[in-house]
């Protein structure tokens, strides 16, 4: 009796889960299948659910119209440099706001939080004029530099640094460690989960960012993936097979990146929960 009741709830739970899985995987599957069909086939009713044999052709036309390798490199370079630098800056700023005492500390922090509330549309045009006068249009640094100090990440890091007990820092100082050494060898390792969260967040936002790169980049060989994919959407012609393949390619690195850092995430959470 009990077992059959258990069994039926299990069946219920699992069938709900399976529906959920299908719902979340279906668009993804459709994207991958779509990238193996020619454009016209994608609109067929009933839809073709099995992979076709057009993948190589789609890739050929994609690299012809975009130079996909260079575009991929642009995106990867920008996202990685940006993630490393901005995560470091957020961590340093967060540490300073959490642990140092200096004049105007709260005032500064308040200003940083306020800047979270300014919509990007407001700063877009002045920032663009700045880039023009630096002669930085169509360069990597125009995309990487302006948003290096990310207010939200600084806030997140500060909250996490505050939890670190002052006594650790003091003990390190007593042992004769310099401030940089304390930061890199004591503080950073204990805030790993927060660092991973910030890194994922920064990487995703830069990898998917469209508006600012679109405004500052002009030539095809400098395009990032979102800008390049957007340029595939023509006035009267859209090659959907090409577009699906491009989209598939652009989601792969995010998945890899997330899977890599997921370990950090979980080990960080576990490490915090078990006190010995």
């Amino acid at each position, binding site marked *: 009796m009990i077992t059959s009741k258990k069994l039926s709830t299990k069946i219920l739970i699992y069938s709900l889960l399976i529906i959920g899985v299908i719902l979340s995987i279906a668009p993804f599957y459709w994207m991958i299948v779509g990238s193996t069909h020619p454009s016209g086939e994608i609109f067929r009713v009933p839809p073709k659910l099995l992979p076709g044999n057009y993948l190589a052709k789609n890739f050929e036309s994609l690299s012809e119209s975009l130079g996909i390798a260079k575009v991929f490199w642009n995106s990867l370079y920008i996202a990685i440099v940006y993630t490393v630098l901005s995560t470091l800056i957020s961590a340093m700023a967060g540490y300073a706001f959490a642990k140092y005492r200096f004049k105007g500390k709260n005032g500064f922090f308040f200003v940083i939080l306020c800047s979270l509330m300014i919509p990007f549309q407001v700063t877009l*045009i002045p920032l663009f004029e700045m880039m023009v006068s630096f002669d930085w249009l169509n360069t990597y*640094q125009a995309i990487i530099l302006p948003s290096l100090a990310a207010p939200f990440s600084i806030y997140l890091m500060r909250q996490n640094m505050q939890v670190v007990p002052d006594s650790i820092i003091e003990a390190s100082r007593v042992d004769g460690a310099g401030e940089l050494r304390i930061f*890199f060898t004591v503080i950073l390792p204990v805030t790993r989960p927060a660092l991973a969260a910030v890194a994922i967040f920064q990487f995703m936002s830069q990898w998917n960012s469209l508006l600012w790169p*679109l*405004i500052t980049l*002009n030539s095809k060989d400098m395009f990032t993936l979102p800008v390049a994919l957007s340029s595939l*959407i023509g*006035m009267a*012609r*859209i090659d959907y097979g090409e577009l699906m393949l491009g989209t598939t390619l652009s989601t792969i690195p995010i998945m890899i990146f997330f899977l890599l850092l997921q370990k950090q995430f979980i080990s960080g959470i576990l490490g915090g929960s078990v006190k010995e």
Partner: protein
Amino acid sequence: MKKYLSVLLAVFLLVLSACSNKSSDDQAKTGDAKHPAGTITVWGWDVAAATMKAAVENFQKKYPDVKVKVEDFNSGDLYEKLTVGLAARGNGLPDVVLMEDERIPGYIHQFPQGFLNLNKLGYDKYKDSFNPAKVASVQDKDGNFVAAPWDIGPAGVFYRVDYFKKAGVDPNSIQTWDDYIAAGKKIKEATGKKMLPIDIPNYDGVFQMMMQQQGLSYFDQDGKITLQSPEAVRAMKVIKQLHDEDLILNNKGWDGIVTATVNGEVATVPYGVWYTGSIMDQAPDLKGKWDVFFLPSFKEGGTRYANVGGSSLLIPATAKNQSAAYAFVEFFTTDKASQMLGFEKYGLFPSLKDTYNDPKFTANSEYFNNSPVFKKFADIVDKVPQIHLTENFAKASSLMANAQAAILLENKSVESALKDAQKQLENQMR
């Protein structure tokens, strides 16, 4: 410790090295009006950009000292970049930019000093080389060219030859919209297919075509709103009747129209001539099954012509190399060979009248039931009524789509929905 610092340093060096590989020196050189020189940048979108790229070779035969860099975005992205550049006092803009005609009045209104007056550079002399409706759409209130005319989209009704045959309907017998509705009923009975696709809550293109047939846009020649005019009521009533007879396939956006075309869900698609390219592209296996007739008129012998889409070239006022930019614009829009490039390869229909007698223009198309589909359109471009586009075009269009949805989907009466739309438009324009 040292390890971290060195990593940091390496990253910074990488960034710096990326900063230094920039070359913009060759843009500094410019010539004068007689001998243009230097490099110009042109912004365009997909097939139009490709056409301009292809035309550079011919251009350089005449102007060997000018280098042309064509940059390619999707049109929505291009407008975004253009608006930001204009708002930043013309900074960071190219020397030549492509724009859809319906966008021109809006940009001129918002940035009156944003673009060069081409009359001042001598473009006026080409006034008679293009069809009059196109010329009217690229001139400002005082008759100055603000843009150089390029392609147009004379409208027709693309139809499925096999469906018409099966239902026993002769396309030549369709003279008026009433005939069109009657034919639609017959075809639906015989094949079960609907007559035409309209994205009811979002797209009022069919209404626009019907208005232009009657010589109007959302505005008359004096700029007065026409949404309550007898012409508008007449047009909307035809659309309502089509819907009441269940002849409209209500599907989503551009993708919906293409889907309906590929899958043969509709018997006709009223659209601009450039749709030929899309049909051939997306439905290669329907070869020989499509043909075209002109829009039905509202009364026997009435005008059957309208235009959908089209684009033109503008020179931003802050263009660094204006003489070379003008040389390119002048050459490209008035050179028959360049215009034929875009037509042959991509189906961009020129407004340059010289091109219409080209044998490639008058040839029969195998895909379109062996009929001279392009000649059909070329013969009518001069008859397309001139209409008045204004900076409020986009607002009017979205209000009309709302009104269309209210009439067809919420059973509002034609008169009251149009009255509301007129009022809303008046409010928004205030």
